[in-house]
Every structure is written in C-alpha cells, then in structure tokens.
C-alpha cells in the first residue's frame, strides 16, 4: 500500500544476526513492557460500590491485551529478523536527505509555534517561501507571488466565504 521506492530494499544474502529488524523488534517488545508497567499509574481506577467494582470490561484490561500483543508480536518479529535480508530505508538515504528532513521538521514545529502569535498569512508566507527556496525555487518573484497569494486566498476563502476563523495578523489593520 505504500510506494515501493520508500521501503527497505533487498540486500542479498542473509545479514548478521544484529540488524535493523532486530532493533525494531526489541523496541516493540520494550514498548509492550513499558506499556504494561505504566498501566497501574496511567489508568484511572474504576469506582467501587459497596466494596465491589462495576461488572464488565475493566479499563486496564484492553491495555493489558495490547501490551501482551506488542510483546508477543515483537518476539515473533525478533525470531523472523534472524533471516531477514531487507536493508533499512535509512541505510539508503539520499545524500543530505537526513539534514533536509530534520530542517523541514524544525520549520514545521516553528510554523505550529508561530501560527497564532504571528497570524496565518505572515506565518504561512515565511514557511512556504522559506521552504520553496530551500527546495530549489530560483524564480524569486514567482515564489513571492505564489507563497503570499495562496495563503491570502486561503485566508479570505475560510474567513469570508466559509466563516471559519484563522488567526489574523496585524497586517492591514487585522484584515488579513
């Protein structure tokens, strides 16, 4: 269901026992154990009536089942990882790819932080124009027009036509 070119690739003969599949399997097992340990602290206790709990499914039961499945399937995956041949997609990253992704994620977090304080149009323009330059857009005039025009159009569509609020900015007296 996901595009094949982002998936790990066949790397030929069986790899050493310690491989990325093993690490993932152990991570899932650990996650299941952590989930199980957290249940008493993170699942509220049901009300007791006359010294008895209400009948039916207790709130911790389903989390316990999920934790058990994480551990069980994790161990099955650990077993299968011994014969796995696929290489991790991270092993075949495009040159500079990791840095590009990390920078983009940083920009996205910044966008989330600045959307309300700055306003939708300025924040979106800064992010869209910055990202477009980062991705190789060299026609600056076109970049400015598109990266400013589209957020303005979106702002007007939502606020004036659909009557849904988006954070206003101080530009043009709060008009956009």
């Amino acid at each position, binding site marked *: *269901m*996901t595009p*094949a070119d*982002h*998936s*790990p690739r066949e790397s030929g003969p069986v790899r050493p026992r310690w491989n*990325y599949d093993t690490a993932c399997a152990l991570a899932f097992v650990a*996650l299941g154990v952590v*989930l199980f340990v957290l249940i008493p602290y*993170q*699942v*509220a*206790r*049901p009300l007791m009536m006359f010294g008895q709990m209400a009948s*039916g*499914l207790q*709130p911790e039961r*389903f*989390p316990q089942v*999920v934790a058990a*499945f*994480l551990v069980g399937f994790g161990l099955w*995956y650990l077993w*299968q990882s011994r014969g796995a041949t*696929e290489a*991790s*997609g*991270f092993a075949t990253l*495009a040159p500079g*790819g990791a840095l*590009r*992704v990390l920078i*983009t*994620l940083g920009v*996205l*977090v910044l966008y*989330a932080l600045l*959307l309300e304080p700055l306003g*939708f149009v300025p924040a*979106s323009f800064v*992010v*869209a*124009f910055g*990202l*477009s330059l980062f*991705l*190789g*857009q060299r026609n600056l005039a*076109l*970049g400015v027009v*598109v*990266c400013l025009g589209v957020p303005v159009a*979106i702002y007007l569509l*939502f606020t004036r036509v*659909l*009557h*849904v*609020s*988006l*954070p206003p900015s101080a530009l043009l007296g709060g008009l956009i």
Partner: protein
Amino acid sequence: MFESFLAGAELALRWETGLVMAAGLFLGIFVGALPGFTTLMAMAILLPLSFFVEPLIGIPFLIGVYKGGIFGGSIPAILLAIPGTGAAVATVLDGAPLARKKQARKALDVALVASVFGDLSSDVVTILLIGPIALIALQFGPPELAAILLLSMVVIAATSSGRFVKGLLMMTLGLMFALVGLDPIGALSRFTFDVFALRAGIPLLPLLIGVYALSEILLAIERRAAAEVRQAAGIREGARLTLADLRRCFRTIVRSTAIGTVIGMIPGVGQVVAAFTGWAAAKNASKHPERFGKGELEGVAAAEAANNAVNGPTLVPLLTLGIPGDNITAILLGAFIAQGLRPGPQLMSEQGALVFAILIAMLLANVLFLVIGYLAIPLFAKVVTIRRSLLLPLTVVFAFVGVYVASSDPFDLYVLVFFGAFGYGVRKLGFDVTPMVMAFILGTPLEVAFGQTLSLSQGDVLGYLLSQRPIAVTLLLLTPVVAYLLWRRSMRLRRVAEESAGKA
C-alpha cells in the same frame, strides 16, 4: 428500502451536488496526475472543507476527489512511467511502453473509458447490494461486530506491504494510540500523562493528515523530488482510441470490472490488488499473453477498470458496518462523523435516503467524470511537469490549515507534526501505516463491542459464544484462515509485479 432509494434520488438531483462533484473530480484528477502527490493526501487535506457544508455537498465532493484521483494516477503512469497513485502501478506495465510507441493518447483514452465503465458498473452493484447487506448487518450484535472488526484489522495487516508480523505490529500500535484518552466504557482517564488536551484522545484528523500527507512530503524532500522535472511523453501525436480498439478491449474491461467489484467489498484489499489481479487475469485470458508488459492496450484497460471498480463497493463495509475498508474510506468515515452520521448497521434505517442520495450522486459523477476527463486530458498531461519546489510548501500550508480549522487548537498542529515524523520514520523502516490507522479508528468500537460481549456473557464468554453466537464463532475461526490466504495472494501478486517490472 425502495422508498429510501426514491427519496435519495430526489435529494441527489440538485445542481449544487453536481457542481461540487465536478470540482472534486477536477481536483482529484489534478492531484492524481502529480507524481508524489497521492489521492489520499488530497482527501486528507481537503477533508476539513467538508465539515462546513451539508453532507450532500461535502461527502460527494470528497468522493469526486477520490474517483478523479484514482484515474488521475494513470496519467503520469502512462506519460512518465511513474504511477501517480499506488493504484496505477499496474497501468505503468503497458501504459509506458504504449507512450514510447507514440500511442500515449490512445492509452489515456482507454484508461478513461475503462475507469468510467468500471466505476459506473460497480456503483450500480453497490446500490443494489447495500440494502440487503444493511438488513443482514442489523442482525449483528456486539459479538458479531467484535469478530468482524477483528477480522477486518487482521485482513488489513495481512495485505499491507512488508511482512505480516510488521502489519500486525502496526495494527497493535494503532490500538495502543486508541487507548489514549477516556476509556469508552467507564469514561476513565488512560495514558493522558496529565496533559489536558489528551483527555479527548489523540485527534483523528491530524493523525490522518500527518501520516498520509506530511510524511509523503518529508519523503519527497529527502529525495529532493522538488528538483525533479521529468520529460513527459507528448500526447499530441499518435492515434486516438477507435471503436475497434474498444470492442477488442470490451471483454477485458467487463472481466476486470467484476474482479474489482468483488475485491472492493473485502476490507483491506483495495485498488492495488484489484489492478494487478485484473491485469494478470487479462494476460491469462489473452490469445497473445506475450504482448502484455510491452504495450498491450488491453493491459491498460484491465488495470484501470479493476482499480476503479473498487471505488463503489469499498463503501459497502463502511456504510453497513462502519468499517473502513482502506485508508481512503477511513477519511470518508471522518467526513461522515463530522457531519454527525455514524456509519454502521443503523445508518441505513435512520438515514437511508441520505445514503442512497450519496450513492446516486456517485453514479451521476461518472458521467461528469467522462466529460471532464476527455476534455481535460491535454491539460492534465501538462500538470505532471509542475515544479515541486512550490507545490510541496503549499501542500504543507494546506495541511496546517486543514488541521487548524477543524478545532482551532494549536495542540493539534503538534500532533500533526509528530505523526508526520512518525509516518516518515516507520515507512523508512519498511512498515505500512495503514494497519495502524485502521486499528486506531476501529480500536474504540472493538473495545466497546468486546465489553458488551463480556457483559452479555456474564463471565462465560466461550460458552456464550458457542451456544448462542455461531456467526461470531465462525468469523473468529475464519480470521486466521482468511488472513493467511490473503497474505499468500498479495505475496504472489507482488512477485508478479516485480517480475513484470523487471522485464519491462
């Protein structure tokens, strides 16, 4: 049921519904034609738009995007040998060689006709079947519902890309995410870590847009797909589709339509499996199987008819049981819920006219589909070469807008970024996100159904099921069998695809 159908027909025949479906189709074909932009992404981002209009405007709009997108993926598949959507992978096998032989326009024409025929026929079947299936679904109680939900999730895990155990692990991860918030039976807080915003649980919309849209953008940025502007095959030269060509492909189109219709009704299987099954069946039935994979028009027709024939029937499990059959219907489920409609056994009896109106609107959309597709193919052929350096940042803006307008809560934006990063990471590690999304959506209803079954059984679940719920027992026994058979089939089809791609 017939009265609901007539009432639905009256509701559907409005010019506003036709207009939004046309807009949705146009947008869908546009997005489907852009390599690297998926229909799923478009639907996830456009989903919030449907919240602010009535159901007969919002839901047909999304369905239009869906239908258009599935066909739109065939455009770059034929012109660039890059499938615009996962469903168009099988179209590349014969579509790209046809383009190299300067028959791109003929290939696009047959893709359009096959898509419309497949879609239209399967919509008729959906309308005929949905009433009886809804009546059967009304007989289901909590044990049957729990069994079907479990079966659906396991089937989706079995047919996901990658190893079966990885699909199961993602499914379990989805169940884990669904635990956050208030438990659905006693409304007791679980795994909120004292974060107030988490008491309502992890919001669905940012999760959907994050894993399906934002992660795709991160993948494109990693590969510097923004810089890619490929040379597309021209469509001006070369012959158009003739009646003789169409007659030759007719039997193939009908066969593939039947295959896609059946596959569409099974949760979790979807367009990709349908397209390859249709293609493989056409090759097996052909007098010249050696031509397939080298530019055989019937190959394009088979793949496109099958993958579009999935569109209608895939709504059957969604509307009758509330189970989304794939990631696209998971988004449609979001649209229904936002409109205050809960798909499931009661929907047909409570809102039958509306359901039929939506299905009839889908039927009418196929006529629009044919007209828009035919007139706009030359325009969409140019779309494939638009630079990503502008489209990708704007898609980010659309994603943020979509999430923000749904709740006006900045917390949801952080959830969006988290799941974007999460989706990127797990896909690089070879995990399919779809089982996780399905389990997240179905986890709460599963827990409720399981809890109700426990209450009904009064402590003796096994005895209760064996003595009073034979359907539930049958479904539970079928689950591992069906999962195994589907997993084997998807492995075989993947091998067929890899061998054919290697030879092409």
